[in-house]
């Protein structure tokens, strides 16, 4: 075995360890994973299934998309961002920075973890919608929606990470909550945007969840009809900006 393959093998191993460690930690913290998984499903059951009497799966399809976005946001913001903040508070981050785990592996493991959570939420929501909500979509639509929600976690991960590196542990959670709930609501995840007054509809367009949900609604032919490229561009720009901010935050924490 040559030195380089040995080296890369080590890299893979440390990434695996890091990932498993992260998952184990999340699982040992039911106060995190239960609400993260249960909230979007519970909201969907209430608003998408029980209270939707519009029939024919219209409401349940619309809300499947919006609670899907809602669902993937919380592991991305909290599982990712807030946990970085608290780990830094506890000194974990400093240890990690000294360990053979590279910062990229550390981030990648967290990201992967967020994706696993997102996929569990997606599977749960899809099952509820399909079994109880009369949601009928072509296999292509189901798959694209799932893929979109997975990809859509990325900008929120970046946002969470940026807050996590800059804010202190407890305040990170508070700040993220302040971002999470209002932006989810104002993006029309709970109440469709078209029901907003005109000025509020325009406000919605500055929040990333709005753009992600519009992309999702495009897949099920329920979007407001704005060009998909605008939504994609907005999300990509969000991802880049917050990644840069997060990177600066990480460098700052190294310097301290």
């Amino acid at each position, binding site marked *: 075995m040559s030195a380089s393959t040995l080296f890369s093998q080590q890299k893979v191993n440390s990434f695996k360890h890091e990932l498993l460690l992260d998952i184990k930690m999340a699982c040992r913290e039911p106060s995190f994973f239960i609400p993260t998984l249960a909230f979007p499903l519970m909201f969907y059951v209430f608003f998408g299934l029980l209270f939707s009497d519009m029939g024919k799966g219209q409401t349940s399809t619309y809300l499947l998309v919006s609670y899907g976005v809602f669902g993937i946001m919380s592991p991305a913001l909290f599982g990712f961002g807030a946990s970085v903040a608290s780990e830094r508070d506890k000194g974990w981050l400093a240890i990690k920075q000294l360990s053979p785990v590279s910062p990229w592996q550390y981030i990648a493991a967290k990201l992967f973890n967020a994706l696993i959570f997102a996929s569990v939420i997606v599977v749960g929501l*899809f099952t509820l919608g*399909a079994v109880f909500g009369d*949601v*009928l*979509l072509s296999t292509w639509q*189901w798959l694209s929606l799932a893929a979109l929600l997975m990809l859509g976690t990325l900008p929120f991960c970046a946002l969470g990470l940026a807050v996590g590196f800059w804010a202190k542990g407890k305040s990170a959670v508070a700040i993220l909550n302040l971002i999470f709930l209002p932006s989810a609501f104002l993006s029309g995840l709970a109440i469709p945007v078209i029901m907003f007054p005109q000025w509020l509809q325009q406000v919605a367009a500055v929040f990333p969840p709005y753009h992600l949900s519009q992309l999702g609604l495009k897949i099920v032919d329920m979007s407001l009809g704005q060009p998909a490229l605008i939504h994609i561009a907005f999300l990509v720009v969000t991802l880049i900006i917050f990644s840069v901010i997060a990177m600066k935050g990480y460098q700052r924490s190294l310097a301290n």
Partner: protein
Amino acid sequence: MKKTLITACVLCLFAAFFMMLPSPPSAAKQANITIISDAKVFDGERWLGIRDVAFKKSMILEVAENLKQKYVDANIVDGSNQYLIPGLIDAHTHAWDDALTQAVKFGVTTELDMFTNNIFASVQREMREQHDSDIGQADLFSAGTLVTAPKGHGTEYGFKIATIDDYTKADTFVVDRINEGSDYIKIVYDASNRHMPSIDKKTLTAVIKASHQQGKLAVVHISDYQSAFDAINAGADGLVHGFMTKIDVEALATTMAENKQFMIPTLSILASMMGQDRSKQLINDFSAGSRFNIDASKFNVKELVPQLTGLRGKHNRAGVFKQAQVNMAALAKAGVMILAGTDAPNPGTAHGISLHGELELLVECGLSENQALMAATSNVAKAFKLAQRGYIKRDMKADMVLLSKDPQLDISHTRAIVKVFKNGYEINANKQKFSDKLTNSVKLGDFDKDLVSAFKTTWQPTSDQRFGGNSQISIKGEHKDKRQYLAMKGEVNATFSYPWAGAFSSFSLDNKKAVNLEEIKTISFDAKGSEGKYKLMIFSTKQLMRPIEVEFDVNEQWQKKTLSISQISPVLLSSVTGIAIVAATPNSHFELMIDDVWLNH
């Protein structure tokens, strides 16, 4: 190894999960797709072999094999052991009355009219745009008013048309025709000036040039070689008749072939002129006991017999007719594009049915069966630049004819009609016969609450505007002197040849369903208004050009008007789609009030 297995299992579970998620019933059923399956398909140019043809509403989606598997929930029309050809196009007719419903029964789904009243043509152009409706008739393209000299051919039919006497007027004349809606320009030209006055060569050339400047085709009616020669050299796009002059046509043929100028020989009408009765076999083939296993009740060919056997020429001049076929054969051989046209409904011909005779006459000249089929499908579409017609291909109109016998073996097999599809709907010729007979008096409108009629339709303003006139009208319900009535206000301007403005009551919501008024003796109503002459118009599907009109006068006092309609031909009354009460003499301002309109038994 173990980890790969786990990963594979997880992936499989995901795949299974997504496969299990419910999908709507496949798009086919919702979108109402029909497949004509397993027929041998002629696509307008060549035989494709056994194919499925899928269409959605009026458009062909796909022509391929095994489409039943692709559109699992589609309606299937079994075409096995049958032959599917594009809806036929008759490239030379004169259409009015029920021409288009007649034509479609016989598989003719588009007619190119070469001169009719332009009001009829305007109405039919609107119908032609209703791609997704079950219109139950052929589409019409029309030259509208033809281009002829004063007292020339075309002026002898009893209604006044514009004529041209000087080549300098060509531009405005052509623009006028186009404003009337002409789809192409048809010119009458006779170099010899023998039978009736004709425009001269200079005018011919100027009109053709003007048409081309306006982006329209110019086709020329000729009846001898010299006229054909002049028209072709003047740049005509095509000739709409053959000729019977005994002459070497090689020079003409070469020019036409080189410049892609087409020929519509109309052998059917030439045969009729030369006393050649070819109707017997044609009538038999569409009658009960036909050699083809057809449903004769669909064609009701009996009513066409007088027309088909009443030839224009009483003397048998077989030799002269033969010359027309010889000339045609020489043109075809030189590569001139031949289009099938009948000149129906001139004596000896009828809409639809005669095209099958024309195809046979073309094959007699030496065209192959496939060339004859092309002459009635893709050639016409190409020559006249008709979009979406003449082919069985993706994105073409679903106008098709299903035959039980192979027309490659014998062109007369185009008569073995099993089904005709127009706009994707199967033509059911029988259903057109029903119209409800009104057997008691009906109060068509009392206007007490609203303008809704006894047939649940609302009285509507109507004027000549849809035909290019500029009369004005507004109507509303009014309440005055303890009376509620319909009040009209408007002006009648003489721009249009018979102007009108008034109120229209349709007998059905789509204005297509007719009511039989044979048992109705009078139409009565109360009226008052600006003093003058007014008209009751009755719209019949059997009318020739204009609606039935009954005059009445009005003064400033309410008066009961009782208009007898018992003198009107029962045929016209058997199929009435609505009536209108209108002002019809030019008038800068009129007011007319009507109340309690009755159809009296």
